[in-house]
């Protein structure tokens, strides 16, 4: 069976800026992979390469087995309906002059759905709105007349109306309140289970994906540091960066949170213009040693995933940033 998405050594350089620098990743049909990392690590750039808002400067993007990396705009058209994207900022990504109904119907029109009669199109729009829990009358409103959570539901309805096999969700809940965030995350999880689309869920908040993603990929400065099943990443993170990210996410439980040993990485994320030699994470890694500056660590198989760190070994040896222990 073909995979929903395959990235093979994906590179996106903006002149000297190496925003994405060799990312390989596979999402099977119906799978949900979370792409996690700090601001500027290149997550959105990966997403934008997949939906071909950007043309990658290297590597391969395969969608449903088809190499779309270098297709022209025209050649891409038949594949457009295969992938959709939902952005972080629901206000900025919805055209304020368009009625919600037209916003949601737009992908149908772009995919050559003009063959669809008006009645049929309206029918599809009300189905899509109902799917995300919005009433029909919302179709006749403007985006600014809705709450943030409602607007994000509209973006999701628009993204799903073309029945894509793959949904890119770029921080879809980061701008929302906790209670609204919970309902949007639940909605995405329910739709994903019912419809079965594959999903690349981009976020900087590991806690938000714990029950949504089955695979997690951790990104830093354009490269993947670690990949693995959700269970493994949460229970036995191998890469020092993954461990630090987990330790930094505050737990909404004062007893556990205060007992937790802090790992402070400092704020000095190097620039993608001039990434460090060797391991890109070494300048903030509490465990870095000479070799890290000299050699790029290759991904090593560990458990059900991979980690790119000189201290990780295939026999299961992994470092611990909390104790500073090498293995």
């Amino acid at each position, binding site marked *: 069976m073909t995979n929903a998405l395959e990235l093979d050594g994906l590179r996106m350089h903006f002149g000297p800026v190496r925003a994405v620098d060799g990312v390989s990743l596979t999402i099977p049909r119906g799978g949900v992979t979370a792409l996690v990392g700090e601001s500027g690590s290149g997550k959105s750039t990966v997403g934008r390469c997949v939906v071909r808002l950007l043309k990658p400067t290297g590597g391969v993007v395969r969608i449903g087995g088809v190499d779309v990396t270098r297709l022209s705009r025209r050649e891409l058209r038949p594949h457009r309906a295969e992938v959709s994207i939902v952005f972080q900022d629901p206000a900025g990504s919805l055209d304020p002059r368009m009625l919600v109904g037209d916003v949601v119907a737009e992908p149908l029109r772009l995919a050559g759905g003009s063959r669809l009669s008006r009645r049929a199109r309206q029918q599809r729009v009300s189905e899509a709105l109902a799917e995300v829990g919005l009433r029909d009358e919302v179709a006749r409103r403007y985006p600014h007349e809705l709450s943030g959570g409602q607007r994000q539901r509209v973006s999701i309805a628009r993204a799903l109306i073309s029945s894509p096999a793959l949904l890119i969700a770029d921080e879809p809940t980061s701008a929302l309140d906790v209670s609204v965030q919970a309902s949007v995350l639940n909605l995405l999880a329910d739709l994903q289970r019912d419809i079965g689309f594959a999903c690349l869920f981009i976020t900087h908040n590991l*806690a938000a994906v714990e029950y949504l993603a089955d695979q997690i990929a951790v990104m830093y400065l354009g490269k993947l540091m670690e990949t693995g099943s959700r269970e493994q990443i949460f229970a036995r993170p191998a890469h020092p960066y993954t461990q630090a990210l987990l330790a930094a996410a505050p737990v*909404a439980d004062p007893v556990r949170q205060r007992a937790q040993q802090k790992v402070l990485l400092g704020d000095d994320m190097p620039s993608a213009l001039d990434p460090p030699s060797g391991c890109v994470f070494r300048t903030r890694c509490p465990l870095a040693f000479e070799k890290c500056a000299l050699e790029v660590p290759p991904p090593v198989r560990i458990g059900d995933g991979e980690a790119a760190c000189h201290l990780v070994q295939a026999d299961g040896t992994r470092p611990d940033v909390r104790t500073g222990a090498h293995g």
Partner: protein
Amino acid sequence: MILEVADLTVSFVTESGDVSAVDGVNLDLDAGEIVGVVGESGCGKSVTAMSLAGLLPRSARVSGSVRLRGTELIGAREPELRRVRGKEIAYIFQEPMTSLNPVLTVGRQIGEVLQEHERLSRKQVRQRAVELLSLVGIPSPANRVDNYPHQLSGGMRQRVMIAMAVACNPTVLVADEPTTALDVTAQAGILDVLRNLRDRLGTSVLIITHDLGVIADIADRVVVMYAGRVVEQAPVVELFAHPHHHYTDGLLKASPTPGRHAGTDRLQEIPGLVPVLTRQPDACTFADRCPAADQKCRGSAPPLTASSGSQAHLAACWHPTRQEAKR
């Protein structure tokens, strides 16, 4: 008590009618205490914070009392308020980039704050600026003092904002969503700085956030706001272990927390939306979203009272959650 807020009420006159933003808020802050204010967007957290030092626009109608070491600030004259701001009550806000001047070095900007309240030579100013940068954990402060804001990461810019806020050693530091725009790793650093300030300088901190993880990490005491009112208040461990108000309970259950959702595959939602009120009704404003609401809740507003024994744990609810079963 350093700061005593009593019956604070704020409304705004707008073109589309009055907006009731804060209704009868009571709040205390002790010397060296960190109090967290939590609640959904629009519940009145920022308006409460800004009214402390008279920062609200003219369209605001403010009543009630704000006493700083016994001195009333509501209705105080502008020169008095100007002295209070910075020297007694200092603020940091969410967006460090927009509050910093892009064309001045961070040293110059810290210097301007210092010279507003003290007479210092240029050399003294620079030395104090370096000390302050070091106090907020910026590495090599003697070099960073000559940096422009764009040369710093988001986390470092927020540290600079804190350095400016504490330049004159204020009694109270009000931090309004100081980490919301930051990554978890930078956030952990900022929370550490705030804790340090309290420990080393004895600063009282009022921290505003919608993130219960932040509260769990840093607050000694928590104030939960809903639709302009304080609905619950308790020491941090007590609040998370035994929330009395159904809104607090809902917020806790909606917050993604690693480990808490084991065995379930969804977050709990709080159905419905925060109401925008033109007038505060004599009713519980959470009643429409509350699983325990009845006629009484819709007919009269519950007072904020000590519920189960502890004088430190207050809730405004006619039917507090049954905690006996959980203990």
